[in-house]
């Protein structure tokens, strides 16, 4: 597979109109993060888990800090909570722009890669880069840097932006809406380039209290039910398969899907107004069961992230205080936490001893939770198009996998139950 993060292979064998083999194979080398965390101190854990992923480092850092805070009973200020939400929006925007702009758009514009796009569609390329750059500037300002941010710490932030910096960011976000909506209209022109495909699927995401949940919430499923985060294991049910170094997961059915499409399916009512208008362009509303629409859900979330960040920053600036470095009372304990990373719901759980050393860790990655659904979707899609030409099957199946925006390196951080 090309134009995805990490190493995965697709094996399809069709003979005499019969599908003999259809397999999604994850071959990335496992890195053993949960084992690495054992014996490390509480103030190092987020630094290490950040390195699970370069694109969603902010997601891993944030969920890691929250899990440590849960384990040690650390409270955070309202301001910290809101600033973390803005930081997550920055990551969501950055990751989605990378995916839809650099990895997916070439498929829809029939160019081999973003490298050609830079020449054949320069205007669109520059628009994508502007949005991508703004997302990074947002993350740089609040987190220190997008990849492996230094500012977020247990209890809050080691360094805060100034009032002036936040104000300037707010203005830049406002000014970027034109580009963001242009992105929506661009995809509207090209959306017919995705193969028509539907499959009844269970979607799982966080649901917040009166807001589109990225930072916190309860776990919910389109098949019904709601669970507090502490019961995450009842949802993920990870298991090993022979053709994959990453685990698969299942809940109500053989598989389930997480990510932007799952979030839109479960949080649609809380999409910001202009994001909802773009969603309506595509008739993207609950419950959409076309996995290719995950790409469109990501475009919609870019707009939502910009709008919601503006709202959050306006709130923050009413009473902006650069807080000092938080003081932590180290104690033994076990904590579970969650965030919605760009690719879906993410869980970290840790146990610490009284010296603040991590004695046990569990990380359930969004892409792990998607692998089984990718497999099932692939089987159904190949059955549907098995009589088409080889090139077309190859393109369609690759586009299917790409639509999930899999983060394969993340999913082979590796865990054992």
């Amino acid at each position, binding site marked *: 597979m090309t134009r995805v993060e990490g190493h995965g292979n697709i094996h399809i064998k069709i003979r005499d109109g019969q599908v003999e083999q259809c397999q999604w194979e994850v071959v990335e*080398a496992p*890195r053993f993060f*949960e*084992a690495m965390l054992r014996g490390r101190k509480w103030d190092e854990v987020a630094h290490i888990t950040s390195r699970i992923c370069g694109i969603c*480092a902010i997601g891993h850092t944030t969920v890691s800090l929250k899990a440590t805070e849960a384990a040690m009973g650390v409270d955070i200020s309202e301001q910290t909570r809101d600033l973390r939400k803005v930081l997550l929006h920055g990551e969501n925007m950055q990751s989605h722009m990378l995916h839809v702009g650099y990895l997916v758009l070439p498929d829809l514009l029939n160019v081999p890669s973003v490298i050609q796009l830079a020449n054949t569609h320069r205007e669109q390329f520059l628009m994508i*880069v502007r949005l991508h750059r703004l997302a990074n500037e947002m993350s740089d300002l609040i987190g220190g*840097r997008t990849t492996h941010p230094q500012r977020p710490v247990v209890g809050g932030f*080691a360094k805060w932006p100034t009032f002036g910096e936040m104000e300037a960011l707010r203005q830049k976000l406002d000014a970027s809406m034109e580009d963001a909506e242009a992105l929506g209209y661009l995809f509207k022109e090209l959306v017919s380039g995705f193969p028509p495909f539907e499959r009844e699927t269970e979607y799982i995401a966080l649901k917040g209290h009166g807001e589109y949940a990225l930072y916190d919430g309860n776990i919910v499923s389109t098949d019904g039910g709601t669970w507090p985060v502490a019961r995450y294991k009842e949802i993920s049910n990870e298991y090993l398969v022979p053709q994959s170094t990453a685990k698969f997961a299942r809940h109500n059915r053989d598989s389930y899907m997480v990510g932007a499409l799952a979030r839109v399916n479960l949080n649609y009512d809380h999409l910001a107004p202009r994001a909802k208008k773009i969603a309506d362009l595509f008739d993207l509303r609950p419950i959409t069961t076309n996995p290719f629409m995950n790409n469109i859900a990501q475009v919609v979330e870019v707009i939502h992230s910009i709008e919601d960040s503006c709202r959050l920053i306006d709130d923050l600036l009413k009473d902006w205080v650069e807080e000092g*470095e938080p003081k932590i009372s180290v104690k033994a304990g076990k904590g579970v936490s969650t965030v919605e990373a760009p690719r879906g719901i993410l869980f970290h759980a840790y146990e610490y001893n009284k010296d603040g050393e991590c004695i046990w860790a569990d990380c359930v990655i969004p892409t792990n939770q998607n692998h089984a659904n990718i497999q099932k979707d692939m089987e159904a899609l190949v059955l549907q198009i098995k009589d088409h030409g080889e090139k077309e099957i190859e393109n369609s199946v690759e586009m299917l996998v790409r639509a999930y925006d899999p983060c394969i390196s993340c999913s082979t951080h590796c865990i*054992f139950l």
Partner: protein
Amino acid sequence: MGKPRVAFFDFASCEGCQLQVYNLEEDLLKVLDAVEVVAWREAMKGHSDDYDIAFVEGSILRQSDELRLRQIRRNAKILVALGACATIGGINNIKNFQEQEAVRQFVYGNKALDYETYPARPLKAVVPVDFEIHGCPITRKEFTTVLKALLLGKKPEIPNYPVCVECKMAQNICVFEKGMTCMGPVTRAGCEACCVTEGSICWGCRGLVDDPNIHAQVEVLAKYGLSVEDILRKFQLYADFSVIKDEQ
């Protein structure tokens, strides 16, 4: 004579270093003007084995990866290790300090032997590496500086003095004064001490300077009442593989 042919590869990594190349934003266009990218799995489908410069991210975690790396070394005139995982082993080295079997058991249980793995190592433990871009992640500035040097046929200039120099230039308050443990005194500069500037410590991700002043480090520890144990713990996060090997 055409543009230099460039390829990107990755092994066991978080792909954060490749991401910094995307994060060049508009400047990526200038890079694409100066070179021809012939292989980059994350960005494009096409692939060629005919390249001049190979940028390689990630550590080697299993025998089968060695084969792929040796092939890249054969194909490339210049091999550049991209980021801490590739230059020194990076965060992947932490597991080397734990007993290997225990690690595999903990993660895969009784299926442990089905999963191929061995102690994490940087590229230089397997093949000769021509140049290194350090850091976890690399900085865009250094990537650009190194690329420019290579395109001009010059040897990239990488600092060989500790992060403390850059920290002083950034006018940071020394974090030892705040009771924190910092790897700055023995870590190679080139990052402009960004982590201390952003409120953290130096974690040592760029690896040791060539002749680390261990005596100075020990003196500093004594002065601030910090233990050697504290430093050794921090040292494990980005311990240079060649140093670990020597100790085993």
